């Protein structure tokens, strides 16, 4: 059994920032990631991020991953990175079991940060298992990590930021996007992302959904239907579009099974897109010394995931007996950044969701 002061599950934006701040505080850290490289979803993001300078606004996700990874290297003596390492179990005695290339490893940390991110929500319609129907994450991986075109013409289901951004990236890759739909009468992503697509001549079509996928061995055609203002189908409005790729970007949901395994208090909060752990303002769950950060705590942007990671890193280090020399100021700054990022009209749902996820009785 390996002993460490802090184990961080997930090496995405939240996990990396947590590792940096924990190591900066003086703690010994192990970062575990199931992928063969660090960065999580950042490595697929070729677009510039929003936010402020503190969250690397104007930088592309892939560049932010490299910045964070190089910061990790500054703490080589403190941080151990385990790649291709999937955490398969988390037990009540706080032992993590890990599968790394067929090897079964046990880790016992003093404190733990869960930053496992999210998984994609899928859609149920006939023939949704035809080759050519992908989640947006898979399309980004193929295109932006491996340089492989998913097909020739794409239809995008979902007009949140992911649907809009991936559509733009497909167009950049020279793949025709025939349209973007969403169920509601207004698209959910930022208006500037939709405007970028419209300038390219890509139709953005709210109040539509996919009802059928057609094809023999692979996707050839989809049937769409128009919806009314209450998202009800309008009979007789079906029409077909020929495409060889259908990309599903209908949202993410927290990837929280490890928290369930441990027995953290969980709650379904629709504004945070699924079951999330209750947590205090410093991101400690109902279990002492178990912290969360990033999408696993509720679906948000990478900018807030990074700040949450820093906050959880500082606090988990403190719980492990390493108080950062600027602890008070840094924690206050994290709270301020999170407040700013969530304070606008677009952050309203997040604020509402977070107020339901607060764990008041447990303090730092």
């Amino acid at each position: 059994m390996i002993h460490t002061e802090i184990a961080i599950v997930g090496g995405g934006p939240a996990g990396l920032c947590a590792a940096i701040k924990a190591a900066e505080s003086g703690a010994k850290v192990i970062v575990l990631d199931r992928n063969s490289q660090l960065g999580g979803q950042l490595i697929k993001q070729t677009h510039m991020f929003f936010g402020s300078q503190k969250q690397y606004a104007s930088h592309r996700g892939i560049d932010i991953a490299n910045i964070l990874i190089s910061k990790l290297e500054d703490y080589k003596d403190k941080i151990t990175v385990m790649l291709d390492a999937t955490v398969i179990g988390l037990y009540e005695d706080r032992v993590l079991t890990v599968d790394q290339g067929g090897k079964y490893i046990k880790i016992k940390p003093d404190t733990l940060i869960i930053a496992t991110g999210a998984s994609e929500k899928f859609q149920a319609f006939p023939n949704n298992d035809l080759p050519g129907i992908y989640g947006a994450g898979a399309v980004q991986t193929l295109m932006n990590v491996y340089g492989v075109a998913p097909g020739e013409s794409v239809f995008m289901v979902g007009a949140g930021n992911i649907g809009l951004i991936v559509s733009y990236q497909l167009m950049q890759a020279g793949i025709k996007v025939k349209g973007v739909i969403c169920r509601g009468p207004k698209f959910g992503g930022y208006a500037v992302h939709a405007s970028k697509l419209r300038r390219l001549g890509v139709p953005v079509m709210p109040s539509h959904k996919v009802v059928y996928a057609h094809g023999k061995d692979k996707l050839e055609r989809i049937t769409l239907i128009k919806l009314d203002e209450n998202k009800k189908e309008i009979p007789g409005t079906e029409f077909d579009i020929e495409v060889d790729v259908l990309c599903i970007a209908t949202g993410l949901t927290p990837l929280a099974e490890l928290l369930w395994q441990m027995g953290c208090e969980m709650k379904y909060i629709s504004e945070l897109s699924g079951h999330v752990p209750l947590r205090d303002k410093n991101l400690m769950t109902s279990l002492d010394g178990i912290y969360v950060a990033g999408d696993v705590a509720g679906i948000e942007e990478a900018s807030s995931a990074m700040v949450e990671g820093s906050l959880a890193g500082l606090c988990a280090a403190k719980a492990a007996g390493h108080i950062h020399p600027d602890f008070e100021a840094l924690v206050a700054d994290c709270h301020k950044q999170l407040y700013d990022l969530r304070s606008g009209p677009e952050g309203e749902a997040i604020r509402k969701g977070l107020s339901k996820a607060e764990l008041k009785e447990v303090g730092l």
Partner: protein
Amino acid sequence: MLERTGVPTKENIESVTPLKERLSKGPVAIIECFQEIPCNPCYTSCKKGAIKELIDINDRPILDPEKCNGCGVCISNCPGLAIFVVDESYSETEALVKIPYEFVPLPKEGSFVTGLDREGKPVCRAKVEKVLNTKAQDRTPVVSLIVPKEFSMTVRFLSLNDHYSDNTIVCRCEEITLGEIREYIRRGYQSLEEIKRISRAGMGPCQGRTCSQLIMQELAAATGKRLSEIKMSAFRPPAVPIKLGQLLGGDDHE
């Protein structure tokens, strides 16, 4: 409306359009950001202090057109690619529109492209004045387009598709494109003779056998005249190119 279509409304655009006097004075940023989102790189990148401080990061950027010198640094810094620079002082009839363009291949400087509006519809021909793609743009190159002045607040993207056949060669000898001929006509060159002298079209080895008719058609289309009303250019010997030496030797009878 914007949140249903993704296309800024007329009111949206009017709210960020500087006064005519300011537009005619020279380059100025047009910030087409109409939603309160947590984002501030435009403000932090502006060296002129022309964008009002975003006290709340969710505030929409407000530009002071008098402080803005149209340098365009904000264009490549805006994660939403929502900032453009318009320069209506470019010429009497043309304006310059600077747009962020993250696609390959990049258009070539001097080539003709199609100016697209906010819905991606072709609205006018545009000439690529400059393509700025240095480290400062960090992979968001800025393309400067020359467009007819009336389209300065309409053109927001470009297509390399030669919608107006502007890159079609009309004078093969001198490699003059239809777009260049049209540009001369717009600038006021109204006869075949003038166009020949300014562009060299018709001065090559074939002496205008390919291009003269085509240029006359363009002149007719642009001026509304009939072909019979377009004056031919002067024809002078030699009708085909000859070597200088041939002249030097003189005629056998001389």
